[in-house]
């Protein structure tokens, strides 16, 4: 009896899942249409020159692309963003895992990491400029510093949240410390690592723009500064849309990665 129920439940859930997916897609498209409608109306009502309609923004975006201004800016921003973010994920995960694994290191460092995480990183920008100048290195460091904190703290928390019963099981098989780390503690910390990466990715994108505004003007942040100061709202909003797209794509990619890594949860 319980077996039948379980099978039936699984089947319903699966077919329900596909219908759910279609519904979600339809609702999302509907909401996008609503958003564009509201945007269009708002653009009509706003005083001329302060806002731009979706159509004007699309045209401006197309023109910027044709003139070869948009793609190089995207490339420049992505270089800063991806480099800083990947360095943050790599270094932050390693440090957080080390802090969780070696208790003394963790207890020594954790208050400093938390203090640094609570300090607005913008405060360091003048220092970074003095040390590294206005170029790529400075920008990458600004992105890195923003993204690395949530990665460290989540990796640290993930290792400490390891299931002591699974660790004991592994010890009972005679597993070494490194084997326990690789097969028990790290797989168990994956949800935390992914959460850290996701928060880090958001901060990294924000800091990319901040870096491009505060150091040598470049990339999408640079375009925002130029068009913003000249009240070229259509171009300005086109850049904002591109940023939103980058954010959405990265978040979705991380979500897919998480789903794949955690497929054992309800396979």
């Amino acid at each position, binding site marked *: 009896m319980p077996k039948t129920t379980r099978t039936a439940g699984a089947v319903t859930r699966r077919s329900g899942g596909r219908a759910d997916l279609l519904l979600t897609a339809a609702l999302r498209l509907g909401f996008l249409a609503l958003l564009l409608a509201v945007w269009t109306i708002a653009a009509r009502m706003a005083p001329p020159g302060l806002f731009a309609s979706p159509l004007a923004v699309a045209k401006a975006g197309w023109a910027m692309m044709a003139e070869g201004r948009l793609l190089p800016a995207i490339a420049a921003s992505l270089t800063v963003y991806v480099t800083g973010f990947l360095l943050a994920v790599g270094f932050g995960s390693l440090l957080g895992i080390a802090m969780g694994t070696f208790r003394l290191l963790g207890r020594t460092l954790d208050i400093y990491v938390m203090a640094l995480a609570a300090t607005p990183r913008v405060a360091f920008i003048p220092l970074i400029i003095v040390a590294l100048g206005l170029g790529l290195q400075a920008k990458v460091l600004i992105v890195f510093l923003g993204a690395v904190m949530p990665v460290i703290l989540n990796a640290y928390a993930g290792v400490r949240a390891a299931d002591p*019963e699974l660790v004991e099981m592994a010890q009972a*098989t005679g597993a070494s410390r490194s084997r326990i780390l690789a*097969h028990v503690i790290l797989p168990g910390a994956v949800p935390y690592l992914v959460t850290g990466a996701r928060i880090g990715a958001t901060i990294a994108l924000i800091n990319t723009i901040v870096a491009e505004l505060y150091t040598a003007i470049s990339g999408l942040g640079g375009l925002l500064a130029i068009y913003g100061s000249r009240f070229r709202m259509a171009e300005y909003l086109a850049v904002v849309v591109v940023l939103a797209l980058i954010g959405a794509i990265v978040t979705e990619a991380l979500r897919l990665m998480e789903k794949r890594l955690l497929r054992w949860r309800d*396979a």
Partner: protein
Amino acid sequence: MIAGGSKLAATGLAHRFGPMAVLEDIDLTVNKGEVLAVLGPSGCGKSTLLRLLAGLIRPAEGKVTLNDAPPSPGKGSSIVFQNYRLLPWKNLRDNLAFALPDWPEPQRRERVDQVLRLVGLTRFAETWPAKLSGGMKQRAALARALAPRPDFLLMDEPFAALDAQARELMQQELRQLVSGPDGPGVVFVTHSVDEALVLGHRIILLSPRPGRIVARLSTPDWGGDPRDHPDWPELRRRMWQQLRESVLNDPNSDFHHFDGRP
């Protein structure tokens, strides 16, 4: 009964956590091919006893020996836990392989397939634990424990979380698994008098914390279904009485020992 001559023994064993005495004055021996059932009230130190026997923790007093040497985790003994403790991110095959860290690959795969067949889970080799029923998970945990061919299985209320039917089947399965000529010795911790009688060649009864051995008993060769044996009702009655007394009375009082032969 003593096949291969392997022996797990505790002498003068005592343990405490901080100021709290958990086990006192434990003497016991288990031979390969023999099942020792450990019966005792909640919190009397049964799980602690298994950890000591496995070498996961060091005793405060006395000693444990496995074939005359101190025990070392994973060397000669395996634990089966009540809550299975399968790694949720590994399929069954990889969960079992995890217990064979030093085995070369072809042999490891062969051994994993062998124990999967032994517990009837071959079809589920590539399945995640989350998809299995409690009974299947416990069979997998048993297979993982058997995989390294331990001399001794240390089982901590392994069937307590299963429904009555699955428990009965698992008891039968375990009896068959350990009765072979190469069967391991088993220390089987349980709350259930019936389970102790069905599975144990010998039974020890622990007092409430700090756990001491208050009774030792040998079961007859049941032959078929133990419940059909003429001695069953009397043994069962006596075990219950002992258990009741040990819980009701001052845990430090001196119980009379009896060998249980009617």
